[in-house]
């Protein structure tokens, strides 16, 4: 089992990043939409945002590590895509990095606008870096827009993956799930 990425496909680390973050990001979106509608007397009124903030900070670190891992590894080939598809997939992939980074930072700014740190599950504090009067309100609006944009991009990304898998008989989906070895071996045997 490959740890690093190769030109054939994704190694274990990239695949773990991909699927774990995908599940957590979708869960965070659902948690976020649900928690902002909570009644003041809900038992989760305080704990749900605490969990959301904690997970968000972990996602921010994970995103930075993932980006470092991405630029430090060979890029798996996408030559079975058309030039247009290749451009689109480049846009979607880097769009995710930019959107997620902005999304996570905007969330961080909501909670730290008046100087309070974010406690990550009580394990450690992420200090406030930027303080500005009233910053929490524009940051919150941006956070909401970016969250919906991220999910929209995820839908595009998923539909594209399914299209490549079912219509183009491409291995892009299977290699993200099981790595490069199986598919490339299979290709060789065929």
């Amino acid at each position, binding site marked *: 089992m490959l740890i690093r990425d190769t030109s054939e496909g994704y190694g274990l680390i990239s695949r773990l990043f991909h699927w774990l973050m995908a599940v957590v990001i979708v869960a965070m979106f659902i948690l976020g939409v649900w928690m902002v509608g909570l009644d*003041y007397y809900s038992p989760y009124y305080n704990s749900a945002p605490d969990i959301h903030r904690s997970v968000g900070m972990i996602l921010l670190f994970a995103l930075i590590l993932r980006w470092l891992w991405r630029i430090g590894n060979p890029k798996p080939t996408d030559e079975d895509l058309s030039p247009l598809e290749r451009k689109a997939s480049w846009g979607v992939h880097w769009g995710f990095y930019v959107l997620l980074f902005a999304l996570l930072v905007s969330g961080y700014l*909501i*909670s730290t606008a*008046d100087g309070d740190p974010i406690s990550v599950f009580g394990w450690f504090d992420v200090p406030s870096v930027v303080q500005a*009067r*009233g910053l*929490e*309100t524009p940051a919150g609006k941006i956070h909401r827009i970016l969250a919906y944009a991220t999910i929209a991009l995820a839908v595009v990304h998923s539909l594209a993956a399914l299209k490549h898998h079912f219509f183009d008989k491409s291995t892009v989906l299977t290699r993200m799930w099981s790595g490069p070895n199986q598919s490339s071996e299979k290709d060789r045997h065929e």
Partner: protein
Amino acid sequence: MKFKRAAFAAPLAATLMSVPAVAADYKIDTENAHAAISFRIKHLGFSWLTGRFDKFTGTFSYDEKNPDASKVKVDIDTASVDTNLALRDKHLRAADLLDTDNFPKATFESTSIKTTAPGKAVVTGNLTLHGVTKQISFNAEHVGGGKDPWGGYRDGFTGTTELTLADFGIKRDLGPAAKTVELTLDLEGVRQ
């Protein structure tokens, strides 16, 4: 000579004073923050939560001899709400509470002032908050006034009222103990 002048001056002064006095106009000293708009509301019925509106401007007129002829007008920037917790302030500005995007301004303008005791009065007027205008009354008190050390003349007042949030279309349920909020205006004005 001195007596003569005094004899002349006295009736003149009396005449001036008997003329319905023109109230002096004051600008509320928000620039140097000798004025505050604060509120408090019960948290769960267990304690008082306090907050302020940090940005506002206003003027009043005041005539010591005829306080009932006084007037006061205050414009409040609702988005400047500050309860010392950014997350709560964000929620207070949001659509289910102050909705500051749609209602960025709150105003109070007095319509009548009735002196109840020396230095005390009920100040009635229209409060526009959350897009709803309603008549409310403050129990107000003249705190003090006179020449300040820097060549100006100041007068200061404090007034408190109690608002029912639902009256102003703020429907968010904050619990049975938090239906109403106490609003206090502390206003020091510099005579213009």
